[in-house]
């Protein structure tokens, strides 16, 4: 006997299943093989220094009532096993050195024999706790086996923790890599933009400029007026695209001054007033009065919000409600722009900040990418809260300007 249990324990602990499933398998095996009524495995929480019940097997009746959910590190038989660093065996009728009476353990109530073994190597991982309602004596070989099984459990738990940590690290690395790729894309875009901007802008300017002259000065056939208007409009669109691309090549050109975010938002809202009216969009302004100053490049931040507004307006072609909210939360100026445009399809969420990614026929795919880069350049944070079927909320957090806050404080006092 004995050794085949060990083989089974190794098989169970080495499986691909979730840790809890594996521990449950072991607990069931042990309660059966050692003919114990109940087997419980506790896991040690390294931070809180507490043993939490992970799995139980065996007598379900006592498993429910007789199993303590958690033990402090010095409580009951599990506590004693931890303290001694080796298995503890005790029985009610044959009090080994009076242990049963000395150690208060509600978990042992109603049982006659217990075996409790720490699961540990250099570190403590938990406790293996077997209980029996009748008197039972374990042979020296069984006792030895018991320790070996606990050691195997320690190895399994340790490996599991390694894997969890590795997976975490892997996820973090993948996340970092994605960000790096994003940054590289922007850099490549910036370099290309620097070369292209001049070459494209000049001919565009000629085309657009002369088309405008034609439009204003020549007596044209009505259908030709439409053609010329189209040229003018398309050139404006391309110029806007060039502005966007050039934006990525000029990271250094920021002028940070103390600004009032509410004032910026008012200006942005005003800029779109005609569009709101045309698209039957109600605008709710929920601007907090107690806003400290924020150190930003006014033009850039306006551009960032303009892009958010333009997106919101496009999403609400059939009307809707746009809510602009500003708040002061700790070290952040928080601005929320919410629309009721139905939200963003989950499958494209991962791409919305990527340059040149667009789902719109006439989009440049640069709007949100620019907003993202402007906010990042301000050491700010941009978050998207997508409510599929309802709408999207973009949350922009900008760090509060310390000096700016003092200035507003002074102004208030003198007023």
């Amino acid at each position, binding site marked *: 006997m004995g050794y085949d249990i060990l083989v089974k324990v190794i098989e169970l602990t080495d499986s691909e299943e979730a840790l809890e499933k594996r521990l449950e398998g072991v607990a069931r095996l042990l309660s059966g093989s050692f003919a114990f009524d109940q087997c419980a495995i506790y896991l040690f929480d390294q931070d809180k220094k507490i043993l939490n019940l992970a799995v139980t097997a065996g007598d379900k009746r006592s498993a429910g009532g007789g199993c303590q959910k958690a033990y402090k590190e010095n409580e009951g038989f599990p506590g004693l096993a931890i303290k001694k660093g080796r298995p503890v065996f005790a029985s009610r009728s044959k009090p080994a050195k009076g242990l049963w009476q000395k150690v208060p353990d509600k978990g042992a109530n109603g049982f006659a024999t217990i075996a409790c073994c720490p699961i540990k190597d250099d570190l403590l991982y938990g406790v293996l706790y077997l209980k029996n309602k009748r008197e039972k004596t374990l042979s020296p070989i069984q006792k030895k086996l018991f320790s070996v099984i606990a050691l195997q459990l320690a190895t399994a738990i340790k490996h599991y923790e390694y894997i969890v940590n590795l997976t975490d690290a892997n996820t973090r690395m993948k996340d970092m890599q994605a960000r790096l790729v994003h940054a590289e894309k922007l850099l490549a875009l910036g370099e290309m933009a620097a070369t292209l901007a001049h070459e494209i802008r*000049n001919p565009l300017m000629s085309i*657009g400029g002369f088309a405008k*002259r034609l439009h204003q000065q020549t007596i044209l056939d009505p259908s030709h007026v439409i053609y010329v208007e189209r040229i*003018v409009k398309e050139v404006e669109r391309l*110029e806007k695209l060039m502005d966007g691309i*050039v934006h990525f090549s000029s990271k250094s050109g920021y002028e940070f001054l103390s600004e009032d975010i509410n004032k910026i938002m008012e200006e942005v809202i005003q800029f779109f007033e005609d569009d709101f009216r045309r698209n039957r969009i109600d605008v709710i302004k929920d601007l907090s009065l107690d806003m400290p100053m924020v150190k930003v490049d006014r033009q850039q931040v306006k551009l960032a919000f303009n892009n958010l507004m333009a997106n919101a307006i496009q999403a609400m072609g059939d009307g809707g409600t746009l809510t602009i909210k500003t708040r002061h939360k700790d070290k952040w100026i928080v601005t929320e722009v919410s629309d009721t445009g139905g939200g963003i399809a989950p499958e494209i969420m991962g791409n919305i900040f990527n340059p040149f990614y667009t789902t719109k026929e006439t989009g440049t795919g640069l709007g949100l990418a620019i907003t993202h880069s402007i906010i990042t350049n301000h050491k700010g944070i941009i978050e998207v809260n997508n409510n599929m079927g309802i709408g999207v909320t973009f949350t922009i957090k900008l760090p509060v300007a310390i000096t700016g806050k003092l200035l507003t404080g002074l102004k208030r006092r003198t007023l």
Partner: protein
Amino acid sequence: MNEKILVVDDEEGIRLLYKEELMDEGLDVHLAASGEEALAKLEKDKFDLVVLDIKMPGMDGIEVLRRIKEKWKNLPVILSTAYHHYKQEFGTWASDAYVVKSSDLKELKTTIKDILNTGKR
């Protein structure tokens, strides 16, 4: 008398557009296709204002600006370029104004008028 302005740009289309548009504004428009040509014209004639492109083959706009300000300290210069970010560059500080090129010449025209009016006052 109409104010005399010099437009410096290496692109023929842009020069023509500036000329037509600025003539409509009642300005006496002269053209130069390079920095060297511009400096030569400035030596010969007296101008009220210069519209200067930055990125040009040969002598670039920033170098032309430096030379203009050395010799004709009070001659106003408007830099006009495809890039926003020259605005922060040290070499452009000596200019009187900075305009980003666009098929919409409104900004350029207002800037020219503002500068010429200030000069008169």
